[in-house]
């Protein structure tokens, strides 16, 4: 049996769609343009995040999960990646058609984001207090003293030790975990409705990872925020997610409530990911890995993108790309799903 257990939470939240949706992404397409060519890295992603729910977007590096997150904030690297189609709506309002100024007002205030690398994500020449204060005052008409009070409160909520004394610290005086706490404070200071966390614990020590994750979940629960957590770590998914979307080569291949995804994964890729989790009860033997590699986005295979690595692939899988079929709270992009057996 796998070492991962799906955490049960007090006041178990009913899954997904009966709450009002905060973020709706439909048929999102993102292309990366280089000098010679351009190719799609996000191919028609659909995703919904509701209030008071944590949705995990899982996938390996380069599958387009970070691009999806950045596109919500309007922060795709300019001149490199670009949204070429689809719709992103926040509380029913289309984000892609917003003026720059309107989008800017939403950032940090309604939608916040935490990034992967806390070491490089804070301006090295300003104190953390001054940056927090600047962000707070750019959205709220408050005095500097009030802004600093809000900043200290946010830092305390992010569980930064000696929060008030840290306002005058420069980022280099803080450890990686402390810097990520500053990033969390920056993200929650203005009580946003939606928090996007892009691999927030990947760059941190394992011991700190759990604390940061726990902190994020507490803040999310008490504020009833919607949270989109992007990760490649299934252990993270199992411990915090309400719902999970699995992404492969720019497409969502499966989406399900977290317990169902772990107990009854449908898509062969999801099954492979779960099978690849190391099992601590077995001390010897080689680790499982999914055979083959991700197809290059420049030359995607015809048909199902996972077919070249799939042991159950039919002839049809090589010919036509399967649609994402919806069944209640679950959806799946596979025409030949097999029951999951642990190898």
């Amino acid at each position, binding site marked *: 049996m796998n070492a991962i257990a799906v955490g049960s939470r007090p006041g178990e939240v009913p899954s997904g769609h009966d709450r009002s949706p905060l973020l709706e992404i439909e048929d999102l397409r993102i292309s990366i343009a280089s000098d010679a060519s351009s190719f799609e890295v996000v191919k028609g992603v659909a995703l919904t995040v509701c209030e008071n729910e944590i949705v995990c977007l899982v996938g390996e590096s380069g599958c387009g999960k970070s691009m999806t997150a950045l596109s919500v904030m309007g922060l795709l690297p300019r001149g490199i990646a670009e949204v070429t189609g689809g719709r992103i709506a926040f509380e029913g309002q289309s984000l892609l058609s917003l003026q720059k100024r309107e989008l*800017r007002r939403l950032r940090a205030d309604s939608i916040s984001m935490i990034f992967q690398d806390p070491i490089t*994500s804070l301006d090295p*020449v300003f104190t953390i207090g001054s*940056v927090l204060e600047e962000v707070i005052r750019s959205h709220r008409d408050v005095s500097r003293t009030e802004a600093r009070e809000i900043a200290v409160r946010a830092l305390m909520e992010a569980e930064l030790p000696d929060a008030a004394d840290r306002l005058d610290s420069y980022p*280099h005086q803080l450890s990686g975990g402390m810097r990520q706490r500053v990033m969390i404070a920056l993200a929650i200071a203005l009580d946003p409705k939606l928090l996007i966390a892009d691999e927030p614990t990947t760059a941190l020590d394992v011991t700190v990872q759990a604390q940061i994750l726990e902190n994020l979940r507490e803040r999310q629960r008490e504020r009833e925020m919607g949270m989109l957590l992007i990760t490649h770590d299934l252990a993270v998914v199992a411990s915090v997610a309400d719902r999970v979307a699995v992404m492969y080569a720019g497409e969502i291949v499966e989406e399900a409530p977290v317990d169902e995804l772990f107990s009854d994964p449908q898509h062969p890729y999801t099954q492979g990911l779960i099978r690849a989790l190391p099992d601590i009860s077995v001390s010897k033997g080689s680790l499982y890995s999914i055979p083959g590699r991700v197809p290059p986005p420049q030359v995607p295979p015809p048909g199902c993108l996972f077919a070249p690595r799939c042991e159950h692939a039919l002839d049809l899988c090589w010919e036509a790309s399967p649609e994402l079929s919806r069944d209640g709270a679950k959806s799946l992009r596979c025409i030949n799903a097999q029951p999951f057996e642990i190898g």
Partner: protein
Amino acid sequence: MKRTASRLAYTVIVLFVSSIAVFYAIRLSGGDATAAALPGSATEEFREEFRDRLGLNEPIYQQYFTYMGRILSGDPGNSLTNNKALTDMLTEHGRNSLILGGTAFGLVFLVGIPLGILASLRRNSWADQGIMSLSTVAMAVPNFWLALLAVWLFASTLGWLPSAGCCGTKQLILPAVVLAFEGIALTVRMTRSAMIESQNSDYVRTLRAGGLSEWRITCKHVLRNALIPIISLAGLRIGQIVGYALIVETIFGWPGLGQVLVNAVLRRDYPVAQFFSLVLVALVVLGNWLADTGYTIANPRLRKST
């Protein structure tokens, strides 16, 4: 504190070594001191006596120690050609050089930084391409040629500015611009690339995610970070300007330290050549020290940790 102390020790060592180098170089460059100081009709006997009086027949190391002793006691001696006190010459010509060099130093940053910022904000526009091509040319053109070209165009042909002289504003313009030219070009390129690097950084993405305006991010955060390498290399521009001043001051007849030094070398005026070489070395060392200090001021990571 420890850092400052070690920099200071380093500075002293550099000054000491270069004083030896300067002293020996001038002795070894050949020529005869008496040629400058005495009329052509002076007898060999008289010349020998003159050398003796100046201590030129002593072993070189002994001459060096005598000389350094005099410098450290504040009296570096007099010129051989006109018997002026070197300290007086330093005050007089140093002031002129300070006017010219200071203006050039100011131009380097007051012109270079804004142009670099403009180029970085309008990346790949015609303005950017124009600025970058010009700066490439400016770095490739040797400044003695540029000086001659400037004299030909603005003084001889157009007649807008005097070709030489001292020390009014009009006379200052041409030499100052020529002296600053390469520094401006370097500063433009450095500013542009530092700005672009900073704009693409993770922390700028964080600030964008924080909803700050692009204008605010650029003016405050991007610029402040981009200034670190520019400020830290500002001291090195002093060295460059000091070096180029020898040429530019001579061409434009600007009576500064550089011109005095060049003339002294040509006339074998040892005391002047030695002393002013040392002054220039001290200026360059000072520039490097400033570069270090400036870097610490601009970059909180290098400040004393609290």
